[in-house]
């Protein structure tokens, strides 16, 4: 069995190391140049304008220092946005990862109709977020399909245990709006995460499973003892992408709650708050400060994940 973590080839001569480095820089040159200009450039631009009172048309008006950051942290709506965003990420990431992995493992087997199931499970990921969120709003309306269905099935007593009325306004009520969006996004993104895991599963060779079978390991044991640990690079990718994406929740929030994050800021997320600052109040330096606070949060969490999921050099 190959050791995955040991990527260092033996006996590298100096000239080979130099030519390897030159080749590598060549391989990454185009993406890095684009990133430096379009992403990292924007990052420094944001840092620069965040310490000013900034007019988007005429530039800096007054030096503010860290005032924008202080104002943001002191604003109860922004505090709510941070809590909402963290709550969403903490619930959605594990759920969608588990769902994606389960689906991937299921459709990775030799089962009848595999192509059909692969297509079906990926299907909710195909539609644009706008289309699917609109449909969700429709389905979850007080007299929408979901409420009608549970009425017809006679399971409303179960729901009333949790205090939900037969005409519960799932997305319009501040206590259920965010959870409804979490369910929607687990449903729609599980297909994408299935795709990630499906690709990862292909990198595990048969011999590993054959060896496990000879050792007499059962399916459940094989999964937890062999498949799951060998998916480590996959887990790291999926978890990182999910956390980064989760903390930037925006589309579903603005589509279901409008720019105001209705009802009563239940759908207010950090990016939606940033959007309000930039394109409703035209306060770009404040928006930049928000963006940098968000960046710092994501960056920190990504570094923690890197510790958690992978040892160098496979991270």
């Amino acid at each position, binding site marked *: 069995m190959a050791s*995955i973590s040991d*990527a260092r080839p033996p006996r590298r001569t100096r000239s080979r190391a130099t030519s*390897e480095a030159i*080749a590598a*820089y060549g*391989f*990454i040159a185009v*993406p890095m140049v*684009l*990133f430096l*200009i*379009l992403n*990292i*450039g*924007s990052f420094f*631009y*944001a840092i620069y304008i965040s310490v000013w009172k900034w007019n988007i048309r005429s530039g800096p008006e007054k030096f503010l220092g860290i005032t924008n950051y202080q104002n943001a942290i002191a604003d109860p709506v922004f505090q709510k946005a941070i809590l909402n965003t963290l709550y969403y990420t903490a619930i959605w990431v594990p759920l969608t990862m588990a769902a994606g992995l389960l689906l991937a*493992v*299921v459709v990775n*087997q030799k089962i*009848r109709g595999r*192509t059909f199931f*692969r*297509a*079906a*499970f990926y*299907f909710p990921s195909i*539609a*644009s*977020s706008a289309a*699917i969120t609109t*449909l969700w709003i*429709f389905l979850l309306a007080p*007299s929408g399909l979901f409420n009608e269905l549970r009425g017809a099935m006679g399971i409303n007593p179960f729901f009333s245990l949790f205090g939900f009325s037969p005409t519960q306004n799932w997305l319009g009520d501040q206590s259920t709006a965010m959870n409804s969006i979490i369910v929607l996004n687990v449903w729609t993104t599980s297909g994408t995460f299935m795709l990630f895991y*499906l*690709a*990862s*599963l*292909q*990198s*595990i*060779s048969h011999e590993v499973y054959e060896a496990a*079978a000879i050792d007499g390991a*059962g399916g*459940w044991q094989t999964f937890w003892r062999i498949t799951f640990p060998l998916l480590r690079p*996959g887990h790291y990718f999926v978890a*990182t*992408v999910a956390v*980064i994406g989760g903390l*930037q929740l925006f589309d579903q929030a603005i589509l279901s709650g409008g720019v105001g994050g209705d009802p009563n800021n239940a759908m207010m997320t950090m*990016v939606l708050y*940033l*959007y309000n600052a*930039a394109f409703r109040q035209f306060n770009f330096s404040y*928006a930049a400060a928000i963006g940098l606070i*968000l*960046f710092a949060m994501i*960056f920190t969490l990504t570094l923690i994940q890197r510790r958690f999921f992978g040892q*160098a050099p496979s*991270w």
Partner: protein
Amino acid sequence: MTDVALPRETPAEVRPVGDNGAIWRRRLAYALMIGYALVMFIPFSWSIITSFKTLPDATNMTFIPQPLTLAGWDYAISGLRPSLPVLFLNSTIIATVVTVTNLVLGSIAGYAFARLHFPGRELLFLVVLATLMIPDQLRLVPVYLIMNGLGLTRDVGQYVAVIVVLAIAGTSIFLLRQYFLSIPLDLEEAARIDGAGFFTTFWRVMLPLAGPALAAVAILQFQGTWNSFFWPVVFLQNAGHYTLPIGLLFFRFSGGFATNWPPLMAVVVMATVPIVILYVFFQRYFVEGIAASGVKG
């Protein structure tokens, strides 16, 4: 469900064949999967049903159009400005170019980050990750200023601007890097001992093994670009350059203050078809990765 955890082509010995309980578990598993699959089709079915409804009927929670009408489709095909073929063509061009650039740039860079050694590798890879952490909303103004400075906010330049912004996603590099990392080193070493250069090793040995990851990147990037809205809407300002999602906006108020659902859904259905075809085409690569290539671990 003992067999659920086992990937494909598990040796038959592990499976308890002939066990009655196992057969029933298997049937139950299938029933659950079919049920779940059907739930997955609800949104799409709903779109199809609505596309055959009249606008007043479209707001009703019913499954059978009353009356059934082709007016939505008719309006979708004839009523869009610019016309549907133009929108399809624009979307296809942009999505195809962006997919190809992501595959090419992403796989080469992903390989370099996974297997080559060079000073600053860790830091530069953090830069790749960091690109995912800056919200597009924050990047809008600086990116627009750069594109405007380069003269890419006018005429055909608008296309170029969209393509340049989407040309390479950090996720593409990241995904391919993680995949290359998990491929055993042996084959690559053999190629190097044969004296193959870095690019030849990548091209002849590693890339053919990367089928599943390339397929995943292709599907995600094509679909993401096909559905993308934010950057196209910022840059594509001549109606002749519009992509499908922008064209769809035309229906938003075409029923007065209310959304004109039937033609909207007709276009949504039509817009979904190319992605489905692409997906079905690429998904077969998910069985042809390293597992099928006979690499000895």
